[in-house]
């Protein structure tokens, strides 16, 4: 007897089947490489001020021009990718792990524990993550580590909500009941049967939400309450260039463009991963 092979079909050719996904992935990988090797690829020191070269338009010497302190914008954009990706990654890690714990607890406990957790999530979720992050910054103070924690905490709510919804859906599945019929202990059922069916959708969420975390952290910097100068942070650079936008537009436009391109690339990659690996979006055999 032969077995049908729907799962393997074209697994290798995903890059050919999804050209935009491939392009976006290349862009995202480019950002990651630039961030990792920033000291090697950046032409100047990102915080070196040169008062002989202030507010120069893009040229051969400064491909993206310089800012009002004479700092090379290209170098600052490249180092800025470091901060953006580090903040995005760790903030989402905090949000996803916290959300997984809270969501699992809410989805599996039932009764008043679930009620209390859900009211907590609801009261947190009612606020947009930017507002919530501002509130946490007000408590924690400024700095890269504080931004990571504030943005991470503000994302626990949305993560917890989707995890709980998935748990509620998975725990009534027949295979969970079947495991109970085989006298599999409850802790093992949660670990082996419920968790994997919740983790995969969560991983997809993570790729999509990294861009949200980057946007929120840049917004904090833009508002002047996140990362402190002279850290080469995109949000901060956009804010600094705002005063000169009429005659030195590149000061805001270059970091803005870098931010927009990364966000678009990440969301295309996230969507591609979701469509490719989410069994709910695939026709079942």
């Amino acid at each position, binding site marked *: 007897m032969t077995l049908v*092979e729907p799962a393997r079909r074209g697994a290798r050719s995903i890059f050919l089947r999804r050209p935009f996904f491939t392009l976006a992935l290349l862009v995202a990988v480019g950002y990651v490489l630039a961030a990792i090797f920033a000291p090697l690829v950046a032409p100047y020191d990102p915080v070196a001020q040169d008062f002989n070269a202030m507010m120069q338009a893009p040229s051969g010497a400064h491909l993206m021009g310089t800012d009002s302190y004479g700092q090379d914008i290209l170098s600052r954009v490249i180092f800025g990718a470091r901060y953006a990706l580090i903040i995005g990654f760790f903030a989402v890690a905090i949000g996803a792990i916290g959300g997984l714990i809270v969501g699992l607890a809410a989805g599996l406990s039932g009764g008043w524990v679930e009620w209390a957790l859900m009211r907590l999530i609801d009261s947190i979720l009612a606020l947009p993550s930017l507002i919530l992050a501002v509130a946490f910054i007000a408590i924690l103070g400024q700095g890269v580590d504080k931004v990571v924690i504030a943005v991470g905490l503000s994302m626990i709510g949305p993560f917890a909500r989707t995890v709980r919804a998935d748990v509620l859906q998975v725990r009534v599945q027949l*295979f969970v009941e079947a495991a109970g*019929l085989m*006298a599999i202990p409850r802790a093992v059922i949660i670990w*082996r049967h419920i968790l994997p069916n919740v983790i995969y959708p969560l991983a997809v969420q993570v790729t999509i939400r990294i861009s949200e975390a980057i946007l929120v952290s840049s917004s904090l910097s833009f508002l002047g309450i996140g990362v402190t100068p002279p850290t080469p942070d995109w949000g901060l650079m956009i804010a600094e260039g705002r005063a000169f936008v009429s005659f030195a537009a590149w000061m805001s436009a270059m970091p803005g463009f870098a931010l927009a391109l990364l966000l678009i690339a990440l969301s295309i990659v996230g969507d591609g991963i979701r469509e490719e690996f989410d069994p709910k979006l695939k026709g*079942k055999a």
Partner: protein
Amino acid sequence: MQNAERPVFELVDVEKVFQVRKPGQRFGRQTVGLHALDGVRLSVGQGASLALVGESGSGKSTLLRVLLGLDAPTNGQALYRGRAIREARAGGSDFARDVAMVYQDARGSLNPRMTIGALLAEPLRRFAVVPEAQIGARVEQLLTRVGLPADAAARYPAALSGGQVRRVAIARALASEPSVLVADEAVSGLDVSTQAQLLSLLRRLQQEMGLTLVFITHDLGVASYLCENIAIMYLGRIVETGPTDAVLAAPAHPYTAALRAAAPSFFQPIAEPLPGEIPSPLDLPAGCRFSGRCPRVQGDCHASDPYLARAGEGRSVACLHPLASPQASALAGTFQD
């Protein structure tokens, strides 16, 4: 072992009532009782094979859930070898190992994130059926037994067809070496040759290992091939039981007779059993629950509700006016043909 002579399963006037929202009230909180099982009497002995037959909604799956201890009966007693089923299930893993289930929705009963090999290894490990080192070999053996290639172990359920998934579900049920197999439509919807292959596998296991079988089916042919005994369900009650061949050859209950007439050739699902709507279990007719559709209905049928009572050798029927004495026709069938 003093339980060896007790029937494997014994149901004494089991009722299962679900509280459902009153029909027509979409927002109200008032509920009414839905009698999914209503006065079920049943006994399944060691090594017996019982087919459960009935229209959709007659309570077959609910009966299985009670047998497995997944649902507690609202009233009456459900016993496993003389012990309350819920108690037997709660009291350790013996019940879980001894009684295995094949779900109606086989695909839904398999974790989509586990390979077939891991799915089959789970009960093997849980019940320490074989030492760890032999698990791979035993998985292969189970796959071969249900007619799947050994390389299926590395696949996920999504990569298998409906019929193959059914085989995996059966293989997993057999992994714990149970003495009782409970199956909900385990072979329906499969093509004829696959069906025949699985049926002969089950029959072999039954003969070689003395497997006790409770088998829900829509197909009278499957019932008569696989099961010595048959129980016909109608609206939450077993209305006739007995040896499959005798019951199908000479039905005593008018409902059985109608089912039989609706399935003139075996190995075909019952298409349209009977004229007339099956009444809602929320609003049963007074007296006999079949009175609204029964061709033999008489005045007293509307007054009293017949219970399952003995009617001849190994047979029982719940009808005030059963068809021609089943004993006589059974004898006729045995001696004069």
